[in-house]
C-alpha cells in the first residue's frame, strides 16, 4: 500500500535523510525510531505529503502521492502530529468532527454516519466524557487523545502517528497503543516512537534511523540490538527479552564501563538477585570485580554480564561442577576480598560456601546477617548457616548493607578512593 523508494528528504540545502526505501501495508504496525534529528518526523511528513521529497517517490496504492487531491489523500492517510495547539475554544466534539472533513467535503453536511464515527472515536480514546469541554481547557494528554480520535474518525487506510502517545500516562499509553495495534490488523499504521520499548512491544517491524539513513530494518529483536543502539544513540544498553511478550526490552547501562581504577580484586559470591547491587557498587568503586559461581538463569549473572564482570557459571538448574569448584578456588585465592551476599543457599550452590570455608576468613565480608527479615534463605537444612557461622568465628567481617560492605572491603584491601 505504501511504497517509499529511494527517497531523499531535507529542508533547503540540508539533507535530513537519504536513500530511504521500504514498503508497508495493511496488517502491519511499522515503527520508526532513531535519535533526535534523525529525520523520523520528516519521513512521516513525506508520507503525509507535508514535505516534498528532494529525490525518490512515495507511492500509495500504486499511485504517486503527488497525483492525489488534498481531500482524496486525506481519505487515505490520517496523521496524528507531534503537537497540536488549537487556536480557539472549539469543543472536543467539534475538533473530532473535523476529522470527518475528508468524507463530508466542502458543501456537504454531517450525516448520522459521521456522528457515529465521531462517537466511536471518542469512546475508544476515552474522551467521550470531555465531548463538550473546550480543547483549550483540557490537559496535554487529553488533547493528544482528542487528536488521535480526530485521526480515527477520519477512518484512513494509513494511519501515521508522530509520537502520538508521548504525553499520555502509562495506562493510556498502553490502552491506546493496544487499540492501535488491533486497528493495524485492518489498516496500515506507521508510528514514530521515542520509547524504544513501546516500539519493540507494539510494532511488527521497526526502522532504525541514524546518520541520515536507515541503519536497520526488521523485526524488533533484530533491530534493537545492543550494537545498533550503541551506534545510533551512543549509549550502552542492555537488551533482554521480556518473557511475557517475547519482545526485546532495552535498558540503558549507566555504570562506568570495564575500566577498573584499582588493582584490588574483589570476588562476589551471590545468587538469586541479591548480588546485583553489590556488583554495581564495587564496579563503581573501581575494583576489579569477579563473580560466581552463578547459574546462567540467575539475574545476578545477567547483571554481571551487563556490567562486563567476569563470571563463573553453570547451566541452569545444574549443581556446581568439579571444574567450576576448582576455578572458584583459584579466583577466590587471587581475590584480595570476597563478598558473600545473603542467600538463598541450596544444594545447587552450597559448594560456593564450602570453597570459602577453606580460605582465609579475614578476607571475607558476609552481608545481610542482621536483617534476614524472616525470609528463608537456607535451603540446605542448616549447612549454609553452619559454614557462615564458622567463617564469622574465624574473623569474617559482617556488613548490614551495601555501604557497610564497601567499607569492609576498603578495610581489607587498604585502598581508599
Amino acid at each position, binding site marked *: 500500500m505504501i511504497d517509499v523508494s529511494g527517497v531523499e528528504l531535507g529542508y533547503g540545502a540540508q539533507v535530513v535523510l537519504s536513500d530511504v526505501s521500504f514498503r508497508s501495508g495493511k496488517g502491519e504496525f511499522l515503527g520508526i525510531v532513531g535519535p533526535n534529528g534523525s529525520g523520523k518526523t520528516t519521513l512521516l*511528513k513525506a508520507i*503525509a*505529503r*507535508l514535505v516534498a521529497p528532494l529525490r525518490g517517490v512515495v507511492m500509495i496504492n500504486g499511485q504517486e502521492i503527488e497525483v492525489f*487531491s*488534498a*481531500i*482524496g*489523500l*486525506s*481519505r487515505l*492517510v*490520517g*496523521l496524528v*502530529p507531534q503537537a*497540536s*495547539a*488549537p*487556536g*480557539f*475554544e*472549539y*469543543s472536543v*466534539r*467539534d*475538533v473530532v468532527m*473535523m*476529522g470527518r*472533513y*475528508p468524507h*463530508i467535503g*466542502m*458543501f456537504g453536511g454531517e450525516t448520522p454516519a459521521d456522528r457515529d464515527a465521531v462517537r466511536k472515536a471518542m469512546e475508544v480514546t476515552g474522551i467521550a466524557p470531555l465531548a*463538550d469541554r473546550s480543547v483549550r481547557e483540557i490537559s496535554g494528554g487529553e488533547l493528544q487523545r482528542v487528536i488521535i480520535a*480526530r485521526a480515527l474518525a*477520519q477512518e484512513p487506510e494509513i494511519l501515521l502517528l508522530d509520537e502520538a502517545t508521548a504525553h499520555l500516562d502509562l495506562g493510556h499509553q498502553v490502552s491506546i497503543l493496544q487499540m492501535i495495534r488491533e486497528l493495524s490488523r485492518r489498516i496500515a499504521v506507521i508510528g514514530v516512537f521515542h520509547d524504544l520499548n513501546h516500539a519493540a512491544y507494539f510494532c511488527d517491524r521497526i526502522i532504525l534511523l541514524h546518520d541520515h539513513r536507515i541503519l536497520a530494518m526488521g523485526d524488533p529483536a533484530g533491530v534493537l540490538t545492543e550494537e545498533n543502539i550503541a551506534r545510533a544513540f551512543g549509549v550502552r544498553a542492555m537488551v533482554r527479552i521480556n518473557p511475557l511478550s517475547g519482545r526485546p526490552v532495552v535498558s540503558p547501562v549507566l555504570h562506568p564501563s570495564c575500566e577498573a581504577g584499582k588493582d584490588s580484586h574483589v570476588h562476589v559470591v551471590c545468587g538469586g538477585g541479591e548480588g546485583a547491587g553489590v556488583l554495581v557498587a564495587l564496579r563503581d568503586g573501581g575494583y576489579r570485580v569477579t563473580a560466581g559461581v552463578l547459574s546462567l538463569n540467575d539475574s545476578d549473572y545477567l547483571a554481571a554480564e551487563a556490567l562486563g564482570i567476569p563470571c563463573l557459571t553453570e547451566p541452569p538448574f545444574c549443581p556446581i561442577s568439579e571444574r567450576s569448584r576448582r576455578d572458584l578456588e583459584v579466583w577466590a585465592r587471587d581475590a584480595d576480598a570476597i563478598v558473600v551476599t545473603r542467600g538463598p543457599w541450596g544444594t545447587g550452590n552450597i559448594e560456593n560456601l564450602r570453597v570459602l570455608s577453606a580460605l582465609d576468613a579475614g578476607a571475607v565480608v558476609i552481608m545481610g546477617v542482621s536483617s534476614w527479615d524472616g525470609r528463608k534463605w537456607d535451603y540446605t537444612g542448616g549447612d549454609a548457616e553452619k559454614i557462615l557461622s564458622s567463617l564469622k568465628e574465624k574473623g569474617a567481617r559482617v556488613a548490614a548493607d551495601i555501604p557497610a560492605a564497601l567499607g569492609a572491603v576498603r578495610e581489607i584491601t587498604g585502598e581508599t578512593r
Partner: protein
Amino acid sequence: MTWRRPGAILFLLACLLAASIVICTLVGPAGVPLFSLPGDNSGATILYGVRLPRVISAVLVGAGLAAAGVVMQGLFRNSMADPYLLGTSAGGALGAATAIVLLGGAFSMPLAFAGCTGAAFLVYGISRRAGRVPVEQLLLTGIAVSMFLSALLSFLMYVSGESLHQIFLWLMGGFWTASWQDAWTGLLVLPAAVPLLLLAREQDILSLGEEDALSLGVDIELLKKCLLVTSAFVTAVAVSIAGSIGFIGLITPHIMRLWVGPGHRILLPSSMMAGGIILVLSDTLARTAGNEVPVGVVTAFFGAPFFVFLLRRRYAS
C-alpha cells in the same frame, strides 16, 4: 457549540439590528416626527435623504469590518488580528489622500478602494514563496508595507498644503458625507460574505493549524487565497466608504466568539450583525451626543479600553 442555541442568537441579533436601524434613523438633532405628514418634505428629506443612507452605510461597513476581522483572526489563529493587517488601512488612506491632493477630492472613493486592494495584493505577492503563503510572512510583510505606505502618506500630507484638513478628516473616518451611493456600495459586502460563509467549515479546520488542516484534506493555499481576496475586498469597500474605522473588526469577533463560540458558521453572521449594530450605534452617538465627532473617535474611545480589558483577561488565563 451545540449547547448554545445558535438560531436563537441569530434571531435575537437580527431583531436588535432592525431595532437599531429604526431607532438610529429616528434619532438626530432635527426632531422628525415618527409619522410625518405626507406633504412635509423637509422631514422626509432628512429621514430618507440623509439619515437612512447614513445608517445603512454604517451597518454595512460595520458588518464588513467584522466579517474581515473574523476571517483574519481565524487565518492568523490569533484573536488579536484585525482587517487592517494586510496594509489595507494605509493603502486606502494613501489612495484617498492622493485623490484629495492631486484631483481635488474627486474619485477619492475608487482610489481608496484601489489603494486598499493594491496594498493587500502587494503584501500577498511579497509573502508568496513557491506557491505558498506562510501566515507569519503575511503578518510581518503587512506591517512593513503599512509602514512604507504610511511614510508615503505622511509625505503627501506634508506637501498637501490646504488640503491637509480634508485628508485629516478622511483619516479619522466617518459617515457625515454618507449618501445613497455609499449605501449601495456598502451592499457589496453582502455577496462577498457568501463565500466566507460557505467556507465556514474550512476556516474552522484551518484555525487548528496549517499542517493539521492540510492532513485533513483542506486545500489550504487555495483557501487562504480565497479568504485573503474576499476579506481585502470587504475591507476595501468599508474603507472607501468611511475611512479606516478602528476596533470594529478587532473587538466584534472577539465578543461574539465569547458568546457563540469559535465555529465560523455562526460566528461569521453573528459578528456581521453585531458589527453593524455597534457601528451604527457608535455613529449615532457621534452625530448626536458627540456633535459630529468622527465615529472613529467614538469606536477608539470605547474600543481601546475594552481591548486592553480583553488583553488582560487573556493574559490572566
